[in-house]
């Protein structure tokens, strides 16, 4: 069973799973737009329809969907100052993640309601601007203290407190940058730790690095292992004569 050919029918996307991942990788689809729960449901239905448990497919699916979820979470909550999910236990982290995703969903509901409202009011026309023959109102202003002007300018010159600027840096560095970096690493060493390789990078950069890693796995240049959830991710250079027996998965994922 091919996970990548899993047909999806979501609000934001319709087509196979691997196309969705490609679009996310190319930043042509916002991770925030993707209903991950619907993908899980589609996969579970497909699994049930087959009537047998394909462990390889489950493993691949879990890694892909987890990375998608992580990317979505990072895209939605980019602020470095925010609570670091990594510092929380799995239980708390899941709760925090669900809470934040719910907040975003609430916003989407609000936007949907506004869109429907606009549609329902499309046949209401009213005047925007003054009536053609109305008198022109004259605005009069009381005497002002010139000290306010100096005060306003001094306030503008005050250095802002050191707060996160990450929202301004929400431009994704190119995936290719990390692809090259990882390929160079793998030419020198047969194995490296993902965490160590992204040490000191921002969350967004880490997320893009993770996508680059997935790309390496998909192009069968590397394999990935992780002993347990939240454990170190080992990246291994793929064997020259890797086991290409026609299955879609040439790598194993034990994080499931």
């Amino acid at each position, binding site marked *: 069973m091919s996970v990548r050919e899993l047909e999806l029918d979501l609000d934001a996307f319709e087509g196979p799973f691997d196309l969705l991942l490609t679009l996310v990788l190319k930043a042509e689809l916002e991770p925030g737009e993707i209903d991950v729960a619907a993908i899980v449901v589609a996969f579970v239905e497909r699994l049930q329809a087959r009537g047998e448990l394909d462990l390889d497919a489950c493993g691949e699916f879990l890694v892909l969907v987890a990375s998608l979820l992580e990317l979505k979470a990072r895209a939605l909550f980019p602020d470095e100052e925010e609570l670091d999910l990594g510092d929380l236990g799995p239980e708390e982290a899941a709760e925090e993640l669900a809470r934040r995703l719910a907040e975003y969903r609430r916003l989407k509901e609000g936007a949907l309601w506004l869109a429907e409202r606009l549609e329902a009011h499309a046949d209401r026309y009213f005047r925007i601007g003054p009536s053609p023959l109305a008198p022109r109102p004259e605005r009069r202003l009381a005497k002002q203290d010139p000290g306010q002007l100096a005060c306003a300018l001094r306030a503008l010159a005050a250095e802002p407190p050191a*707060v996160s600027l990450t929202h301004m840096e929400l431009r994704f560095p190119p995936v290719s940058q990390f692809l090259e970096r990882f390929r160079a690493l793998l030419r020198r060493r047969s194995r490296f730790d993902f965490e160590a390789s992204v040490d000191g990078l921002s969350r967004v950069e880490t997320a893009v690095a993770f996508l680059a890693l997935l790309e390496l796995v998909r192009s069968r240049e590397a394999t990935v292992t992780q002993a347990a959830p939240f454990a170190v991710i080992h990246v291994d250079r793929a064997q020259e004569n890797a086991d290409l027996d026609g299955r879609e998965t040439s790598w194993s994922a034990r994080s499931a």
Partner: protein
Amino acid sequence: MERPLRLISSNPVDRLARTIEALLVVATTPLPVEELAEAADDATERVETALGLLADRFREGRSGIVLEQVAGGYAFRASREAAAACGRLFERPVERGLSQAALETLAAVAYLGPCTRPEIARVRGVGVDGVVAGLVERGLVAEAGRDEAAGAVRYRTTPLFERVFGLESLSELPRLDNLGADAEEIRGRLEAVAAQRPA
């Protein structure tokens, strides 16, 4: 038709109603009852009575001018029956082509109350500078001072926003699912998936 009108016009409430018609036809924004009463130099209760008369006179199907209660006040608009004719003559610069991003940002500003661009970006997950600038240009949101701590400009929705979306006030926005219930639902779905996994 002439006769009853003449009878009514000797009634001072009808004179007040004419004054209110005059005020509404030249006003640029919806006028609250208090403002109408002040301009007409009359009692609020009597203004309300007159508005009742006008609501009947200027109602859909009877008149091309329709009295509506919107954005905290009263205003005239075109009847829905005349929408096609209006569409041929007038652009809709305020609401035409609002993107999904613009609607989400509007929802954030409307629901979060006065808020800064970083605050909106945190909820939406992407930068919103261009979107907010576009909404300011359309007149749907406006600056509302600066955030004291970080010095960032705060934004609020405008009365025009309420008017375009046909809201009497912001309190008419529907309450969205409360967070707890939504988190519960996601948890429930995860558990359902887990239950299907063979041990």
